[in-house]
């Protein structure tokens, strides 16, 4: 009977749970789904990670290539993130060129990387105007159950922490780059940006970490990205119903707590990799 009610009136079904301050999957309004992280899963990539937030599964692979730096920033390397939402992850996405959600997510990740000063781009430069690293970060969603942006940020962070780049020197005689694959250096990560997504229901109730169903029924979505110094790197609310100042503050506080939980998780996993070696 409940299944029938859920299909016929999904909004009423969710409202009846929200009235009791809980959600259909048993979570509280402010509770995140269990998050698991796995790194170095893709052996052919220079760095990789896989994250699961509830059912949402996102994988990231990093490939480092050598290229000439752009002429307007000759002493900096660059990072190219790309978020892919293949038809595999959800029936919402059709095959073909990337849709708006994938492109908007790619732009959002690129903005977070720049805003949070995640990596010092000058360190990616090997020789000014001649050679630099470009890091292609391919983020692919394998199972879409809401809260894509949080998962993408965590998986990117973990993959970058896991990435190892070979040492490159330029041979003075031949003027060619030589990469020493035996000597690998990890990247220096300055900040730990972590995102928290919220959905607004009926203009008043805010729930944390929405599933795909909750996202489709919500009236507005908000993602707050904080770093470990409690500074905000992004407040992304692409529209929808308005949010008052105190509700926004409440979301920011929840995001700051979430940052500490995820930082601990990422550090634990990275440390365990080091001890395993």
């Amino acid at each position, binding site marked *: 009977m409940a299944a029938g009610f859920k299909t016929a009136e999904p909004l009423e079904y969710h409202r009846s749970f929200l009235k009791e301050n809980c959600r259909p999957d048993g979570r509280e309004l402010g509770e995140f789904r269990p998050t698991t992280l796995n790194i170095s899963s893709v052996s052919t990539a220079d760095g990789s990670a896989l994250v699961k937030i509830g059912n949402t599964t996102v994988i990231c692979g990093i490939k480092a290539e050598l290229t000439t730096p752009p002429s307007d920033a000759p002493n900096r390397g660059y990072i190219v993130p790309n978020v892919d939402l293949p038809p595999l992850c959800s029936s919402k996405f059709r095959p073909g060129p990337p849709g708006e959600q994938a*492109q908007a997510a*790619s732009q959002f990740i690129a903005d977070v990387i720049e805003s949070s000063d995640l990596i010092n781009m000058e360190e990616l430069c090997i020789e000014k105007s001649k050679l630099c690293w470009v890091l292609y970060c391919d983020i692919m969603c394998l199972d879409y159950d809401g809260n894509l942006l949080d998962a993408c940020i965590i998986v990117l962070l973990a993959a970058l922490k896991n990435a190892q780049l070979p040492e490159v020197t330029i041979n003075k005689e031949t003027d060619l780059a030589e990469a020493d694959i035996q000597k690998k250096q990890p990247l220096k990560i300055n900040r730990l940006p972590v995102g928290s997504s919220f959905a607004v229901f009926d203009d008043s109730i805010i729930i944390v970490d929405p599933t795909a169903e909750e996202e489709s029924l919500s009236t507005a979505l*908000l993602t707050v990205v904080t770093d470990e110094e409690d*500074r905000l790197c992004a407040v992304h*609310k*692409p529209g*929808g119903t*308005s949010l008052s100042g105190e509700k926004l503050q409440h979301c*920011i506080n929840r995001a700051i707590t979430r940052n500490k939980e995820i930082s601990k998780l990422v550090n634990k996993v990275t440390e365990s990799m080091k001890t395993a070696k």
Partner: protein
Amino acid sequence: MTTMMELDQSYSVLREYGSEQSLLSKPDGSSTFVQGDTSILAGVYGPAEVKVSKEIYDRATVEVLIQPKMGLPGVRERAREQCVRETCEAALLLTLHPRSSVTVILQVIHDDGSLLSCCLNAACMALMDAGLPMSHLFCSVTCAISKEGQIIIDPTARQEKECPALLTFAIDSAECNVLMSSTTGSFSVQELQQCIAISQKASEQIFQFYRDSVKRRYSKIK
């Protein structure tokens, strides 16, 4: 063309802004919005027919296209389109036109900073010109936080480049709350609250401008 200049305290000044409506013959509604040197031309078609794959059974489908001044639309334009589309969806009464489409096309004429804000303001004026039913109007303000921590409102392209943080907000006319927020750069929570407060205050000027342009347009002038 209606124009207005506001002189307030030193750094909370919006650049000279102006708008013109109904300048294109084919779209149902059109407008230009000019903020300083930034200029956007908006055209609205709707309610019109929608492709069966995109139709929604109980509401209108809103599509936004942003054409940059040079080149083809890229990922950056898609992200801006998402912001404009969701803001328009919140303001328009979409359930009055099920299985129809509302298309907003924005052409960048010149970009001198505060581009997303200008796009949103032009979109709102064009939607008003098209006569589409809306529950409230919206306007947008961009704030930049300089290295010294000073908040500059409606920055030029040069100011945007020099400032480490840039925040764009869309404010609604009914309750003066934040409808849309898009930020780059890092900033503290206090700076965010200050920017929101400054944007809400500046939005009052822009809403007054909307009211005055509509009044001027529909009053009996021969």
